Each structure stands twice: as C-alpha cells, then as structure tokens.
C-alpha cells in the first residue's frame, strides 16, 4: 500500500533558519524538495538559494576532512561491526553530539588524536614489515640460485659479480649482454643464468674487477634489473646474506601477528568511538549539505517538501513548540492528479508483505496515486516457485536454508528478505510436492510401490482416478504434462488478468479513460481467447462459448484500439502470447523432475553394483546429482517467477515512481 503524502512549505525568519533545520532533521520525516531549479526559473530574483554563512562553510570543510580521516581509520583498523553494540554506539554518539558545531568538532578531534597516538606506530611498523617481507620474498629465490656461483667468485680476489633479474621471455638479451661486456672487459667475463620461476631468470655476470665502473655504466643504460639487496645485506658475504634472508622471512610473520594482536586490542577499545564519530559527522554534514536546497528572501527562509500525512501534526507541533509563530508550516493543497507526479513514494505494508518489497531492489517503486502490487507478488511468487520446484524433499531443504538465512542475516535486508522468500517458496514446494507425490524425484512413489512395469515400460499407479480421467492423484508431471500445461495457462490468465484490472483501476483513478479502455480491451481479448481455448481442453465445452469468445476477442481488439491507438491493437495481440509464457511454470519443473529421476536411476545402478564400495558410490552419485539439481531449483524458479511478475503481469499496469521517500533524518548513532 502506498503511504498518503502531504506537501508542506515551511517559512520562518532567516536568523533562526539553522535552528529550524535542526528541528526538522530531528523529526526525521520530511522528504526535502530541492528548490534550486524552481528558483532559477523564477523571473523575479527576490527569492534565492539559501547559502551558509562563512563560519558554517568553514565548519563544513573541517567536518568533511574529519569524515575522510575517520573513514581512513575505520578502513585501517577494520573493526568487526557485528561485535559492536548499537546501544554503546548510541551512548557515545550522544556524548559527541552537540548543538554547537565547534564543541562537537573539538570533541571529535580530541578523540581522534587519542586513537591516532595509540595506532600510528603499530600501523606504520606493520606497513614497513609488509614491504620488507615482500622484497625479501622476491629476492630469496634469486639469491638461492646465484649463491653457489657467487661464493666461488667471492674467493677470487680479482673478480667481481653483478646479479640480474630478467623476464624469461627476454632471455635472449643475455647473449647480447655477453657480447657487449666481453668487448668492455677484453673477454674477461662470463654470464651464467638459471630460471627462477615461470616468469623470471636470474643471471650472474662475473668479470674482472678492474672493469667494474664500465660494466656498471653499461648496465645502467641497458634498462635491465640489477638485483640490489637491502644495504645491510649487500655488504655481507652472499652465504651470510642468504642465511639472514631466510631468518627474516621466517621471523616477520610472527612480528606481524604480534602487531595485529596489539592493533585488535586498540580496535576493540576505540571501535565504538570511531563508529559514533562517523555517524555524528554524517548527521551534521547531512544537515549542512541540505541548506542549498532551500530558498531565502532578505528576511525569510523557505523549505519545501513532502511528509506522510500522519506525520504532519507532529511536525507542526515540534516547530510551534520551539519557535512559536516565527516559523509557519503550510500544507499545500495538491488537487488529485495534479502535482502528484512529484510526490515521493513510501510503502506501508504488513510485516509479512514487507519482505516481498525485495522486488523494488530490481525496479522502482510504483508511481504515487497508483496501486502497490507488492501484495500480488507476495501471493504469487511463492506459489510459482513451489509449482516449478514441486518436490517435498527439495522444498524442505530450501525452506530450512531460507529460514537460516532469514534469521542469521537479520541486519542485512537483501539476504534477510531473500531468505524469507526462499522459506515461503520452500513451503509451497512441499505443498505442490505432495500434489505431485515427489520426494527427491520418484523416490517416494517407488517406496510406496506406485510405479509398476507394464510391457517393459514404467507406469504410475494412480491412487485417485485413472489414466483416462482428467484429474488423477498423484499428478505425475511427465504423464500429466498436458493437464498441467492447461493449469499453467489458466494461472497465466488469472495473473495477467489481475494486472489488467489494476491497470483499469489506475486509469479510472487518474481519470485517464483511454488508458482504462486500452487495458479493458486487452482483458476482453484474453477472456475471449480463453473461452475459445476451452474447446481444445474439454470436449463438452459448449460451442456457443467459443462463439462468444471470438466476438469478445474481436470487440476487445477494437476497444484496445480506441483506447491506445495502433499500440493498443498490437499490445492486445501480443498479450495473448504472454499467456503462453506461463508454460515455463511446468516446463522448468519438468526439467527438474527428469533430472531428479535420472539421479535416482543412476544412483540405483551404481549402488546396485554390489559391495560396500558400490553403495558408497551410489550415495555419492545421489548426493552430487540431487545437490546440483537443488542449486538449479533454488536459482532458476526464482528468476523465472520474478520475470513473470516484472514482464508479463506488472508490465500491464506498472508505472514507476519518480522519487522514493527519503526523509531528511539523523542516523542517531544507529547505523
């Protein structure tokens, strides 16, 4: 249901504008309308956008910097938000908050300085250690490769060596280097190379120390990576350096763990302060950033916005109590159908239906003044899901998983809502599973002995009815495909029909007769089509009804044409095709039941091989294939059920809202 909104304008003396904004912010119910566009269109420039005084602008800049600083600290310290008690954050928020911005800034700065003092050194030390570890891990394999050769060179007094690291794909450059350095050293040089890993090759150039400068100068212009060890290691003999590198690589993770432990203690101590400071800064800036959306004259400020009708009285009382007659709130008379298009939309549904508002994460809210279809989604989504899955075993697992998700992620709206939808979908899967008598495919029917072999073919023994009767129990989705196809087409007619009836009501509510005619024409076409289609389903269907159906369909095309022109005619014909889209309700279920039966059959064959290993293999096949089918059964029916709503049904009437209701309110330390 869409909440009834009232448009209000608040006017008051300019010198108390910021106080009035604070009161409105505290109330947290006004959806602000940005007046800047309206003001710029005004020919008379007596009304201008509200601007902050220089001091407030300075406070805004300081708070923005503090917000960035707190954000950085939260990122560095990464407190576990789930462990933080909202009550603690709220208490700290109240301690930080002050109506005087300067006092509030001073409190936050003091807090941050204290946190920074305790965290700066460990954070910097941690960064240094990570850099050192990464550098040593890069050098270590190279050093291990060149160590034996370097040790030999070290024993030769006249010889010097330089280690290089080269990408493997450019390994050929070593030949060129060998030739050039041989020229420089009059042949007193040698290069040995060895691959370090898939990407790099280490090389050691050994040459007469006499040519050290020339070789260094030459390599400097050749753009090759010389391995330069950290200065403290470079001066040591290679074997000693390798030993130290090994020791440091082993030692650093321990040091990092120790720093992390200290940091987590500090984080635990200050996380409440940080989150509360972030919320307080957010609220204060939210209030300041709203100022340019308001208007002002020389003496008066103007705030325009929307309130839920039930909140008008509270806002009036709050403003009157604080400012008396210095601030006046007026409810603007919005005549039905005029000006309503700009009204922000808030939904007010029962707690059960509210979980199904998840659909508005994929689409906008319905336009103000139209009908909210959430309740239709709440009824049909789980039914469609259950109709497609239709297995008691799968339904039970989906229901339990959905409920766990729903309970565990109470603070994460998307997962919480999705969990509830899965729970309801699982419940309907069990109901339809009972109708189809499916429990992990045909397992239950086999246990009950309801599958018998006749002339080498397996057949279902019906508990109610027989192969020749229209209705039989259990409804075998394979044998009863045509029956279920008919059922899904009727469901499609009802589902699209509801959408069209809502379309007609929306048209009548908005006095848009053409819109109502177009939707009514389409409904006539669909009804006529269903009346004619009855003849194909039932031999006893009266021919007169077929005639009525054809007349109704033709008349419907004409009515749709009158209402919506050529578009209406085309839409009325396409709408008939939409009904067949509901065939997916049985087709997807059919694919699922065939896969479940294949899983059972394979598991029986593998398990029947004999012995314990055969049984274990059979169980593995059973679990793996049913597991795969279950994952598909959770994903695919959700998507297709959503699609049937968004495309086939809602597509017939849904008009998106321009704006969602987003009240101007404080977090109050709750986020």
């Amino acid at each position, binding site marked *: 249901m869409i909440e009834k909104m009232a448009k209000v304008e608040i006017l008051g003396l300019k010198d108390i504008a910021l106080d009035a904004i604070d009161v409105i912010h505290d109330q947290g119910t006004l959806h602000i309308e940005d007046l800047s566009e309206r003001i710029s269109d005004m020919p008379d420039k007596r009304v201008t956008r509200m601007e902050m005084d220089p001091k407030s602008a300075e406070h805004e800049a300081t708070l923005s910097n503090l917000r960035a600083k707190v954000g950085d600290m939260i990122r560095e310290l990464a407190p576990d938000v789930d462990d933080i008690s909202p009550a603690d954050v709220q208490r700290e928020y109240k301690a930080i908050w002050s109506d005087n911005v300067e006092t509030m800034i001073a409190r936050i700065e003091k807090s941050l300085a204290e946190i920074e003092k305790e965290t700066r050194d460990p954070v910097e030390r941690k960064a240094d250690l990570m850099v050192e570890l990464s550098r040593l891990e890069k050098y270590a394999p190279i050093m291990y490769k060149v160590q034996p050769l370097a040790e030999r060179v070290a024993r030769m007094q006249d010889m010097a060596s330089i280690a290089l690291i080269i990408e493997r794909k450019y390994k050929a450059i070593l030949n060129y280097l060998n030739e050039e350095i041989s020229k420089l050293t009059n042949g007193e040089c040698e290069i040995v190379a060895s691959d370090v890993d898939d990407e790099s090759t280490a090389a050691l150039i050994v040459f007469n120390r006499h040519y050290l400068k020339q070789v260094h100068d030459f390599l400097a212009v050749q753009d090759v990576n010389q391995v330069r060890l950290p200065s403290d290691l470079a001066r040591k003999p290679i074997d000693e350096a390798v030993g130290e590198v090994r020791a440091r690589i082993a030692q650093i993770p321990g040091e990092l763990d120790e720093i992390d432990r200290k940091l987590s203690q500090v984080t635990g101590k200050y996380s409440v302060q940080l989150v509360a400071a972030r919320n307080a800064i957010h609220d204060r800036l939210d209030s300041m950033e709203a100022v340019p959306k308001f208007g002002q004259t020389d003496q008066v400020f103007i705030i325009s916005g929307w309130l839920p009708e039930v909140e008008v009285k509270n806002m009036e009382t709050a403003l009157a109590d604080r400012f008396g007659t210095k601030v006046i709130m007026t409810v603007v008379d919005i005549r039905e159908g005029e000006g309503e298009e700009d009204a922000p939309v808030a939904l007010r549904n029962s707690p059960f239906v509210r979980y199904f508002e998840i659909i508005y994460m994929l689409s906008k809210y319905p336009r103000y003044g139209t009908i909210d279809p959430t309740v239709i989604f709440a009824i049909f989504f789980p039914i469609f899901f259950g109709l497609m899955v239709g297995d008691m075993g799968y339904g039970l697992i989906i229901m339990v998983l959905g409920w766990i998700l729903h309970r565990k992620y109470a603070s994460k709206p998307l997962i919480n809502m999705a969990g509830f939808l899965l729970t309801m979908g699982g419940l309907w899967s069990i109901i339809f599973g009972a109708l189809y008598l499916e429990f992990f495919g045909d397992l239950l029917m086999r246990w009950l002995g309801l599958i018998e072999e006749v002339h080498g073919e397996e057949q279902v023994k019906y508990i109610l009815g027989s192969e020749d009767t229209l209705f039989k129990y259990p409804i075998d989705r394979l044998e009863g495909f*045509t029956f279920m196809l008919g059922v899904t087409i009727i469901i499609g007619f009802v589902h699209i029909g509801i959408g069209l009836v809502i379309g007609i009501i929306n048209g009548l509510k908005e006095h848009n007769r053409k819109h109502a005619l177009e939707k009514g024409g389409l409904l006539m076409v669909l009804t006529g089509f269903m009346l004619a289609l009855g003849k194909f389903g039932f031999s006893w269907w009266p021919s007169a009804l077929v005639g009525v159906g054809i007349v109704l369909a033709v008349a419907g095309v004409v009515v749709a044409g009158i209402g919506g022109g050529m578009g209406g005619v085309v839409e009325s014909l396409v709408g008939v095709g939409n009904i067949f889209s509901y065939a997916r309700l049985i087709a997807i279920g*059919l694919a699922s039941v065939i896969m479940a039966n294949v899983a059972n059959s394979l598991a029986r064959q593998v398990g029947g091989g004999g012995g314990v290993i055969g049984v274990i293999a059979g169980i593995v096949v059973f679990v793996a294939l049913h597991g795969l089918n279950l994952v598909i059964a959770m994903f695919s029916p959700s998507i297709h059920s959503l699609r049937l709503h968004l495309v086939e049904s809602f597509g017939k009437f849904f008009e998106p809202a321009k704006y969602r209701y987003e009240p101007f309110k404080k977090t109050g330390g709750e986020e």
Partner: protein
Amino acid sequence: MGEAVKIGLIAFSAALAIGLSALATGLAQSRIGAAMAGAVAERPELVGVTIILVAIPETMVILGLVIAFVITTLKSA
C-alpha cells in the same frame, strides 16, 4: 517399417523443436550476457535487472520444450 519411420520423424521433429529454440536462446543470451557484463562492470547495482534480462530469451527454449513434448505425444495418436 512404416511405424518405425513415423516414430523416427516424430522424434526428429521434437529434436528440431527443442534444438533450434535452444540454439536461438543461446545466441540471444550470449549477446545479452556480453552486454550485461559490460553494464555491470560500470554499474554493479544493475546486476539484478540484468539477470532478468538474460532470462527473457529463455521463453523460446521453454516453448520449444513444450512443443517437443506435445509432438512426442503424437506417437500414441
């Protein structure tokens, strides 16, 4: 022999109904999927809507399956 040819043709027709519609769906989904990957890379909040868009061409293969199933029932006619 005649009966065998009839069953063969029915099976072939059913295979064509599901096979061609599956190919068409695959082709359409490959293009929508590529566009979806691009769109989601730039605007991750579109992921929900794009999943619905990818599901739209599946109507073809679903109707193909229904037709194929109906064709196989001709065997007993």
